[in-house]
């Protein structure tokens, strides 16, 4: 009857779970799954959550240029944001610049974008990296675009709360400055997670299997969320939801 649940729907549902009570979530460029999660949270918020999706003037409200996102975030007006990294390490440091000795690079990525600010000031930063390998989740990043934590004298109301991959969901333990396994996605094992993670992380006695969306959530995702996503990421929406813009 229903189409099978797709991994993207599980990830988006997990992401939405971190956004309860938020008033304004921003989504960076080229982040369709985080956008889907944020838009799911928006549908559940009864209109109280605003989602600003960067990269397209039509989905952002700024009237003072692109700096306004950062200004607003600095003022505490952005509750959640999403960051990825070519490398992410066990301390939550992210690298968006490249592999190898800086400034030359074996592999060069596009750059750090707003990470070296938003990671410090947005209270709920959700890290995502769909490729969960020892290449991406490393012991120590080659370049710190933005650090996972800061000394106590540094102004830092924000930081990572979670890391989601194609294998599992980690929480970030701010006190111990390391990741803790929260749940493993259906069909994957602890051994698989351990084999593919380049950093140490805490394994609690109890951890769950990542929840799959229930019928109501699926209806929301495949209905109003899919329609909105199709307006912004038509290729992605077509592939995941079969939805046309």
């Amino acid at each position, binding site marked *: 009857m229903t189409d099978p649940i797709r991994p993207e729907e599980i990830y988006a549902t997990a992401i939405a779970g971190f956004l309860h009570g938020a008033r304004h979530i921003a989504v960076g*460029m*080229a982040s369709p799954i985080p956008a889907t999660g944020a838009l799911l949270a928006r549908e559940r918020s009864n209109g109280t959550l605003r989602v600003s999706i960067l*990269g*397209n*003037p*039509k989905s952002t409200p*700024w*009237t*003072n*240029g*692109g*700096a306004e996102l*950062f*200004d607003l975030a*600095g003022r505490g007006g952005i509750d959640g944001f999403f960051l990825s990294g070519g490398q992410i390490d066990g301390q939550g440091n992210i690298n*968006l*610049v*490249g592999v190898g000795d*800086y*400034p*030359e*690079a*074996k*592999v*060069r*990525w*596009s*750059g*750090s*974008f*707003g*990470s*070296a*600010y*938003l*990671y*410090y*000031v947005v209270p709920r930063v959700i890290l995502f990296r769909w490729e969960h390998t020892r290449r991406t989740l490393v012991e120590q990043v080659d*370049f*710190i*675009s*933005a*650090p996972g934590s*800061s*000394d106590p*004298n*540094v*102004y830092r109301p924000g930081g990572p709360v979670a890391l989601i991959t194609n294998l599992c969901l980690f929480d970030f333990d701010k006190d111990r400055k390391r990741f803790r396994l929260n749940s493993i996605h259906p069909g994957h094992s602890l051994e698989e997670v351990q084999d593919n993670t380049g950093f140490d992380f805490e394994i609690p006695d109890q951890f769950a299997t990542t929840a799959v969306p229930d019928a109501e959530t699926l209806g929301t995702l495949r209905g109003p969320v899919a329609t909105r996503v199709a307006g912004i990421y038509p*290729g992605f929406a077509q592939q995941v939801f079969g939805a046309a813009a």
Partner: protein
Amino acid sequence: MSDLFLPSIPDLAARVSSGASLMLTKGEGPDTPMELVKQIIRNNVRDLHLITLPTCANPVSGMMADMLIGAGCVASVETAGISLGEAGAAPRFNTAVKDGTITVKDGTCPAIYAAVQAGGKAQPFAPLRGLIGSDIEAMRDDYKVIDNPFNPGEPVAVLKAINPDIAAFHAPCADRNGNVWIGRQRDSLYAAHASDTVLVTVEQVMDCDFYDDPAMVAGVIPSFYITAIAEAPAGAMPMNADGKPDMDQVRAYASAARSAEGFAAWMDANVHGTLKAAE
């Protein structure tokens, strides 16, 4: 008509000399001065210091930056990100970094904005939270960490103000007096305030004065910030005037530019060819 209106893109491009710092905006809307950039490339300008406000990571802005770099016009880049957006990595940029043929000053979006806004306000520097403990802060000699004068013991990053020699962007329209309408694409205004020379291409010049219309004037860069304007319909292509990039053209570029040979052939056909045909 204002004397800002020079007849052609070559007149504007002639103001871009080798060694200048050149600011390009991020290309979220149709602000990509592609036709002007092509002429800068044809002029064989060298050693530009390219500054992106704050990225060139949308398909057409990234393509524009990548073309300049691939053509050898650029000595260094200050940026928070260069890519072709959904068309993937910027191949000539990435290759140039790997080969060490350009220097990259890696930044972060709000730091570039803050430094440019400080430049526009003639402030010598801008403080910014964040940054501390990142390699972005560590690698830049134009970023320093000082003690917050109002909260001793708190380190705060300060960024040297940015005042580019030249800002170049495309805009929807100008009025007969040389006022440029940008609507809420306000990064162009901040680039103009901070830069010594401001070169603008516009879709059209309108026979009116935006100051007569209280709605329009809110989205205006006053003429006295503008050095020269050229009317250039479709001057932002492959960014359409409605803000939608022609992704087929961007993907064709992305595919060609994967190799040095492919890039050279693409440039011959799409940049130099237009000149050769005219010769």
